């Protein structure tokens, strides 16, 4: 848990171990790094070919939560700050898309570009205030931000439509990607769009993980004071991480608005949004690349397939959360990491 380097075996092992056996394990490590991508793309292709509306909807829901959890991962998983107000940024993305689409009549590309930027700017404004504090205080402060956002969404009727929300968000007739034209009026088109979003965000995070920036964030997580004494201005790193998280959530919100074509305050409230994002990440494995997706598959996919009623679903959430915390504190992906560690080093990753 605490050993930072053991979490990125692909870099460390590849560079350090020379010789024949080193080459072998570097190869295995390379394959182990690419394999999840292949599985992901293959699964996406299979789902696309199956062409089943229900399967599409479930997959889109899974992807949406995975993207949100990936956003949270940046600030929580890497940096160790318990952001419990991501729902606010998710809601800002969705409401922004709804307003731009319904009231301003803008095409879909406008909110897709504008809303993440607005969320990032907001992150830069709020971040320096709330990131002065950490631990429980930070959690409660961000929770408050989420609650304030919910209150505004419910009460600023002129802008948000209050509890009734905003209806009539129109999807564009089709999106041309050069080689492929998506029919976004159909679920399959929206599914492809969701897949693109997931691949884009996960790819970005995969790149981000290897940057020095992410290393500094991990440093902040384990010992901020020491990092400061090394001369790092940690606040700016934290603020950027906070903004990235908000930005990703806003993008997911824009997608949500176009997918559901209706926004109201409820889906962005604490227990419907921020809490579930947190649960998905905690169950999947904070600080890992594939944790968000794994957590989302388990927590969004399973109740959907089992067709539980909403209350029972929450209970299942709670119980799964307990079990994961008690038995796999590193999240689901810690199981995979151990297996991978075994493949590479022929012994489990030291903890």
């Amino acid at each position, binding site marked *: 848990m605490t050993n930072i380097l053991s979490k990125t075996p692909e870099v460390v092992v590849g560079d350090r171990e020379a010789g024949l056996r080193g080459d072998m394990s570097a190869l295995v490590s390379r394959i182990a790094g690419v394999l999840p991508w292949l599985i992901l793309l293959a699964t996406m292709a299979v789902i696309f070919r199956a062409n089943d509306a229900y399967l599409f909807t479930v997959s889109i829901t899974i992807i949406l939560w995975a993207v949100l959890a990936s956003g949270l991962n940046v600030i929580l998983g890497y940096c160790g700050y318990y952001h419990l107000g991501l729902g606010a940024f998710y809601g800002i993305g969705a409401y922004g898309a709804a307003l731009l689409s319904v009231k301003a009549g803008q095409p879909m590309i406008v909110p897709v570009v504008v809303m993440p930027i607005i969320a990032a700017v907001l992150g830069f404004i709020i971040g320096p205030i709330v990131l002065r504090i950490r631990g429980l*205080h930070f959690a*409660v402060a961000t929770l408050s931000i989420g609650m304030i956002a919910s*209150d505004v969404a419910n009460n600023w009727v002129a802008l948000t439509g209050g509890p009734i929300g905003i209806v009539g968000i129109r999807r564009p007739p089709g999106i041309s990607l050069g080689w492929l034209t998506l029919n976004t009026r159909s679920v399959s088109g929206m599914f492809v769009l969701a897949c693109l979003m997931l691949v884009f965000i996960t790819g970005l995070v995969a790149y981000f993980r290897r940057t020095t920036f992410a290393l500094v964030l991990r440093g902040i997580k384990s010992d901020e004071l020491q990092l400061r004494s090394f001369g790092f201005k940690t606040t700016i790193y934290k603020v950027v991480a906070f903004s990235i998280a908000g930005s990703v959530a806003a993008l997911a919100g824009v997608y949500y608005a176009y997918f559901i074509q209706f926004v109201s305050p409820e889906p962005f409230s604490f227990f419907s949004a921020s809490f579930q994002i*947190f*649960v998905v990440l905690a169950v999947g494995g904070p600080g890992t690349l594939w944790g968000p997706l794994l957590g989302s598959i388990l927590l969004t996919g399973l109740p959907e397939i089992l067709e539980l009623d909403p209350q029972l679903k929450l209970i299942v959430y*709670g119980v799964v*959360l307990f079990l994961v915390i008690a038995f796999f*504190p590193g999240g689901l992906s810690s199981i995979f990491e151990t297996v991978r560690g075994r493949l590479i080093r022929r012994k489990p990753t030291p903890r």
Partner: protein
Amino acid sequence: MQDVINGLAQGSVYALTGMGLVLIFSVVRVPNFAHGELVMIGGMLGVLLVADMHLSIVLALAAGMITALVLGILFSTAIFSRLNKQGEVGQLIASLALVVVIQAGTTMLRGDDPRIIPGAPSEAIIIAGARVPVMWLIIFLSAVVFALALEAYVRYTATGRVMRAMALNPMAAKLMGIPIGLYQAMAFGIGSALAGIAGVLYGLSFPVQASVGASISLKAFIVIIFAGMGSITGALIGGLLLGLVESFGGSYLSSGYRDTFGFVFLLLVLLFRPNGLFAAREQ
């Protein structure tokens, strides 16, 4: 003046829940978000016993207190003390898991309709032109009495001294041979029992429903952050202050944004006094 009274009544409930949470949070170091659920359980139990089974209010108070006490000890021994290794994060996640399970479970069993415990004294007295229901007076007085009692307990008894030692430095306390687990369960039990009593009192003057616990927990956390960690009188004052802020904001600015005022106030406190309003004086 009526706003002051309304604020103090609501604030007394925040104070009662806040001070229990202060005890738990400073002694056991568990960010127990399930604290408000015990308030909710106390209130719902009161509704069940008094409204549906026609038992007396005193009995409901006792039942609420004992149920919360037992649940609190159970939380401590069966859940939180087993998650020690996972640190504050694991505890936070576990307590949030408890919140959803309790809330969803109660909704399944009892529905989510707001109900009030009947049979509270309905008289009101007039103080300086404001109408003060006797029940509110009782809530306010019990908040003050419990705060003083808890403060005295922590300050002047042997067990209280142990708890203060644990709050100050858990490692050193353990090294001194203090049975940590026992005292943690005790602090959890006392704090939770207060939440149970607060729940029944709350239900006697405000409607309770299954989903009310989460917002009460949140208010309690706001109160202890206001007050600075580990200060019981701070929790009393902080709770009353939060009630007043909400009441005045609600009636002078906009009633829809009632909760927002509390949160904005919290953010301001965190901005200017990150250690809490009363922290400097306490240390």
